[in-house]
């Protein structure tokens, strides 16, 4: 954040110097400006067009999706794909499952990560450094390596086809703890000590003082966890096979292939499933982009 601000502040005089000294080259600046912006706009269009094609395709008849000439906007907009999706498949159930997993899962992630991050940031205890390094080392393990034995653990716990299986193993991770530690470590320790003098319990200090103060970090982590859980496919694929326990991705994935000839259904499902994340993204753009960058660099 601070870096960005400094960059912006220094950019203004930089630009002023450039334009005054380059008056004879103003035409060159114009050409460069048009060129760079056009190229970037083309890239943005190339990124967004497939998306819009999916959204608009949800309202096309299948004869239009599989017909020439290929249209971008639907000729005769229809809701037949939506109704077919909602009538023939437990789509609402899949959506509810996804909401439960993403909401409960990210709540767990935010609370447990903050709790552990608080411990690593503000306490001195034996084995602290060893535990911290051990925690960070878990980031190096590729998830795929664990799939087979994790499936066996889920079976032994009798968690197959349960919310527990979808939520608990991913309830708290090293990245979240690390992120929350970064947000907690700069809080003034005097504040915590003052609360101790007033008789607050350690848990009470976390709940009443630390949590409200690290809210920006909680927001970033909540967004990252929610998106991660909402978008995951491989883990639900491993731990559920009952269609009533499917999350959206799994349900939609099961339609790819057998229902290819009714691609409109797939597209309307994709539209409905991606809408919540897109809406949240449009509202919290800044937190999203900052979050992903922080996520990458601190994780």
């Amino acid at each position: 954040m601070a870096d960005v601000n400094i960059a912006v502040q220094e950019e203004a005089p930089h630009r002023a110097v450039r334009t005054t000294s380059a008056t004879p080259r103003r035409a060159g600046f114009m050409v460069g400006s048009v060129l760079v912006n056009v190229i970037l706009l083309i890239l943005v269009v190339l990124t967004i067009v497939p998306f819009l094609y999916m959204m608009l395709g949800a309202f096309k008849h299948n004869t239009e999706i599989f017909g020439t000439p290929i249209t971008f906007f639907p000729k005769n907009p229809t809701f037949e794909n939506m109704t077919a999706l909602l009538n023939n498949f437990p789509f609402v159930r899949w959506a509810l499952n996804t909401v439960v997993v993403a909401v409960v899962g990210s709540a767990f992630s935010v609370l447990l990560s903050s709790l552990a991050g608080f411990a690593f940031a503000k306490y001195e205890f034996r084995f602290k450094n060893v535990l911290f390094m051990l925690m960070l080392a878990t980031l190096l393990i590729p998830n795929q390596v664990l799939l087979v034995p994790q499936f066996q653990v889920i079976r032994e716990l009798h968690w197959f086809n349960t919310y527990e299986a979808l939520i608990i193993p991913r309830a708290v991770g090293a990245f979240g703890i690390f992120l929350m530690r970064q947000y907690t470590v700069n809080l003034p320790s005097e504040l915590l000590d003052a609360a101790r003098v007033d008789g607050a319990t350690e848990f009470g200090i976390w709940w009443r003082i630390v949590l409200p103060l690290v809210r920006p970090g909680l927001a970033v982590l909540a967004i990252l966890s929610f998106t991660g859980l909402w978008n995951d496919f491989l883990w639900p694929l491993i731990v559920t096979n009952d269609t009533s326990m499917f999350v959206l991705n799994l349900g939609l994935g099961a339609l790819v292939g057998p229902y290819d000839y009714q691609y409109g259904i797939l597209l309307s499902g994709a539209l409905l499933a991606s809408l919540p994340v897109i809406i949240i993204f449009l509202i919290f753009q800044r937190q999203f982009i900052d979050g992903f960058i922080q996520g990458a660099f601190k994780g």
Partner: protein
Amino acid sequence: MATAQARLTEGGSRFELNQWWRRNQRKIAPYIFVAPFFIIFLIFGLYPIVYSFVLSFYKGFGFEQKTFFGLGNYIHLFQDARYGKAVLNTTEYAAGSLFILSPLALLVALAINSVYVRWKGLYKTGLFFPVITSGVIIAIIFGRVLDQQYGLLNILLGWFGIPAVGWLSNAPFVMPAYIIMGIWTWLGINALYWLAGLNGINKEYYEAASIDGANQWSSFLYITLPMLRPIMLFVAIQAIIGSYNLFEAPFLLTQGGPSDASMTLTLYIYTQGFQNFNVGYASAIAYSMTVLLLVLSLLNIRLFGWKGAGE
């Protein structure tokens, strides 16, 4: 002592416990706070790692009927043509990320960072979209984009007079198709990584260079590129490790085909472990992949140096 304690009422001992907790909670609390993570890691991380390693020396169907197989699974890796294909395909995808996606993202970042661009946020948001979209939905979208007859990509190529390509049905084109999909998906976030790197470079270097008469190209060559080294290492490692996650599209759109042309390592682990129930062999594949990833990461560190790796 013992009699004194015995004489204490129950309420008294609870009071004692309370007092003891008040005195010692600061020492014990941190262990309780970090416990959830370590308990979950023990059950769903450490135990599976060890169990998977043991499994990789066994052969058999499912978890119950298995016999000791020694290094058999690992030896089989070298004779298994499908495994070889999976390694090759995944490497091809990783190379695409490393040598096409990453430099392209750097160019985009330089463009966004240039004095020519006023609405940086517009481009950042516009390119960021795919990152928050699930692999399944991207696969559904690209089922339409890559279609031979009605696909958007072939229409675009048609405008330039390039004949329609069977992206998903013609073996040599399948991995390039997924590389294109990967570029579409990850261009925005990679540009943001590079942008973060560019913003971290002290502007004074450029001012000093321009006073010394350096032009923009030599500033880029002698200041920007060397200063981006830590980010370069980071972007490269991200690109490689991310490439090994390619699963949804090959699984849903081409089922690893045609003729294993889109079989990836993760897909092969899934196929062996959860479709053929060859859990021992699946574990061996997984372990070989871990070694491969570690080697690649170490190679990266050798190429780009340690500098900044820990930052």
